[in-house]
């Protein structure tokens, strides 16, 4: 047993925190108020090597593996969930699909510019009739010689309006169903027939752009198939496994920030003649939050270790996402309550954190899907097959 974070990663955290305080914090409120992704900030993330953190250096990444990526997501999550969502969609699932499923040529051509942040990625799975039921996608890819013609639409795609490259899942053989019948593709924004549809107005993570993608007979070379034809579902599910861990790390950061705000306010706000932090009700909220944060921190970094040491982590990643998202919402909700009316005010960041945090219980697999995944893993040895 050794829980020490390597020196490189400690230095990395310090560097990221400095970057986040100087560059992300000033942008966070503005992106929320105006509802757009600040591309200057995205450029600065790229310049600082923060868009390819987990990937090997040979592909333009920082070579800091999953541990480094979790540190990044935790630090981003402390200050701006929108920025964490931009990076999560780009690195954690968009580029990750190519890293996990792509061949060397694709990694050279596509992963490298993504890891360097020269191009931005998105992950396109969800459709109007395929939310939690991801296997029910209708977007069709028809083989035509050495290319595929993709027709259909995707919705709720994080980074849709700002991305250059899209990992897209489409049906290649409707008879084979989800195992064997769906394939993952790399689609470039410039390809004819591709367009961005409706941009969503959301409760939170308003600095992270979400949109529809429209595929109107988009011609994609067969060389852009990620992995094997028919293996798209497996690639995407593996990608989401990894993505869930990063999401849990971002939740850890959000909860930690909420705890610190709660403590600071409780120590300074005087009512009934003493700081409200003297009251047991407030102390209990703080104690419960600190307890849950400790649990999540252990979960996240242990799971990162599982990933980096090539052990199975499907169960653990789903636990990180489920527990982390619900815990972060609770922590931020408590912090808001401790601040009273100030917490409910848009002049103070807590209400933004509260709106932002809520998405983590929904996207990248709703928490209901996480429970299905977890129940499936836990019940397998007992001979029970868990179906949605």
């Amino acid at each position, binding site marked *: 047993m050794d829980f020490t974070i390597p020196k490189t990663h400690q230095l990395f955290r310090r560097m990221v925190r400095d970057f986040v305080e100087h560059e992300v914090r000033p942008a966070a409120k503005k992106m929320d108020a105006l509802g757009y992704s600040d591309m200057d900030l995205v450029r600065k993330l790229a310049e600082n090597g923060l868009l390819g953190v987990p990937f090997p250096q040979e592909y333009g990444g920082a070579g800091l593996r999953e541990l480094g990526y979790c540190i990044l997501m935790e630090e981003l999550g402390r200050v701006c969930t929108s920025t964490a969502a931009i990076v999560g969609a780009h690195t954690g699932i968009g580029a990750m699909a190519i890293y996990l499923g792509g061949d060397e040529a694709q990694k050279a051509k596509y992963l490298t510019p993504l890891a360097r942040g020269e191009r931005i990625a998105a992950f396109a799975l*969800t459709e109007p*009739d*395929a*939310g*939690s*039921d991801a296997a*029910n996608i209708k977007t069709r890819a028809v083989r035509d010689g050495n290319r595929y013609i993709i027709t259909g639409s995707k*919705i*709720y795609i994080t980074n849709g309006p700002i991305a250059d490259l899209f990992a897209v899942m489409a049906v290649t053989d409707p008879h084979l169903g989800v195992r064997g019948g769906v394939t993952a593709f790399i689609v470039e924004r410039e390809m004819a027939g591709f367009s961005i549809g409706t941009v*969503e*107005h*959301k*409760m*939170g993570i308003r600095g992270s752009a979400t949109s529809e993608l429209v595929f109107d007979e988009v011609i994609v070379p067969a060389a852009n198939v990620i992995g094997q034809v028919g293996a798209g579902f497996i690639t995407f599910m593996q990608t989401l496994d990894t993505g869930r861990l990063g999401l849990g790390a971002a939740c850890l950061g959000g909860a930690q920030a909420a705890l610190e705000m709660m403590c600071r306010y409780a120590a300074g706000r*005087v*009512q*009934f003649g003493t700081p*409200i932090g003297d*009251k047991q*009700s*407030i102390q209990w909220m703080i104690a419960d939050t600190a307890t849950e944060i400790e649990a999540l921190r252990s979960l996240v970094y242990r799971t990162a270790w599982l990933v980096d040491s090539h052990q199975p982590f499907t169960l653990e990643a789903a636990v990180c996402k489920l527990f982390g998202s619900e815990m972060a919402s609770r922590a931020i909700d408590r912090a*808001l*309550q401790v601040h*009273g*009316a100030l*917490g*409910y*005010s*848009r*002049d103070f960041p807590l*209400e933004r954190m*509260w*709106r932002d945090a*809520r*998405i983590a*219980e*929904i*996207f990248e697999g*709703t*928490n*209901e899907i996480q*429970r299905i995944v977890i129940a499936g893993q836990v019940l397998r040895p007992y001979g029970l097959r868990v179906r*949605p």
Partner: protein
Amino acid sequence: MDFSLTSEQQMFRQMFRDFAARDVAKAADQADKQEELPARLLKRVAAQGFMAALAPEEPYGGVGLDAVTYTLLLEALSAECMSAALTIHVHNSLGLRTILRHGSAALQEALVAEMAAGERIAAFALTEPAAGSDPTCLRTAAVRDGDAYVLKGEKSWVANGGLAGVYLVFAQLDSRITAFALPAETPGLVVGGRQKTLGLRAAAITRLYLNDCRAPAENLLGAEGQGYKIALEALDFGRVGLAAVALGVGRRAVELGVKFAAERVQFGGPIGQKQAIQDYLADAAAEVAATEWLVRHAAWLADSGKPFGQEAAIAKLFASRMAAQVTNRIVQVHGGYGYITDYPIERYYRDARSLEIMEGTTQVQQIVIAGGLFAGTNVRVRP
């Protein structure tokens, strides 16, 4: 025991629901986005007599609703638009009712007819930046000047600020809290900027500055030094009203959840067929049902002239928590559709969160309730 509504109460409820469905529902989404209630809606509310809900028929032409019927009104309104319900609640529960109980004859004559007609909406100005849960920290000061008073200070989180024609203001007079009714046109009374909030965006919540505002003696509410008691009494009744607001929000959220779960197909069937979703909705419905009877019981106690402070605090505590939990769960039932602003549940969820904070936070309700529980023992409950 009789849990049924009288035929008159049932008739009123139908009328409230019809009005809400016809006039409030269509304005709610826009009101949230534009961050104000349309003037037209407020006119329609006044024309229906809802601004006179708690005023007696004689001599003010009021509607004189009993508390139970009044909770039906707030519930019907909040099911469509919580901002609208809150505006009417603050005017009636905190403003009009307090002036009727504690205002001088001259004050009532001067203000109540206009208030009942909705021409003079009431605002309740108790909270200050340094006095939230602890109103004894008030800094706004009143001094005597002949047979009038002069008020100076700053208020925050004033619901109906700017919209109001009369402000109920609580100030320290010789270190004793004293309540005044200040018409909006009082020189020196300045409404500050809107305090923008997570939800309740169509409700007008502002700061208020009192720059040497003169209040003639007849604008005193109750007697000098009775302000704290008057505020607590108003808030006791206000808690029943706010619990009714929460009830409307929760009940509608469950309806929205059932509708969505019946229509949304995933995995080959409506998601309502999944046990997990059924559990969410069943728990939500149970909490709404429990709230309904807490609200009605507290209102019935008020109508019967019995003490209801403890029951009101319990209703507010439970109802606000219910509304926050239920809307949260119904957002989850909607999945991604719950997070975008195209579906109403997103607004209900943001609005509901205010209920655990305003008019006494959950923690303040716990203190009130614990105080009641330990009355007559050697335990002294202090905040």
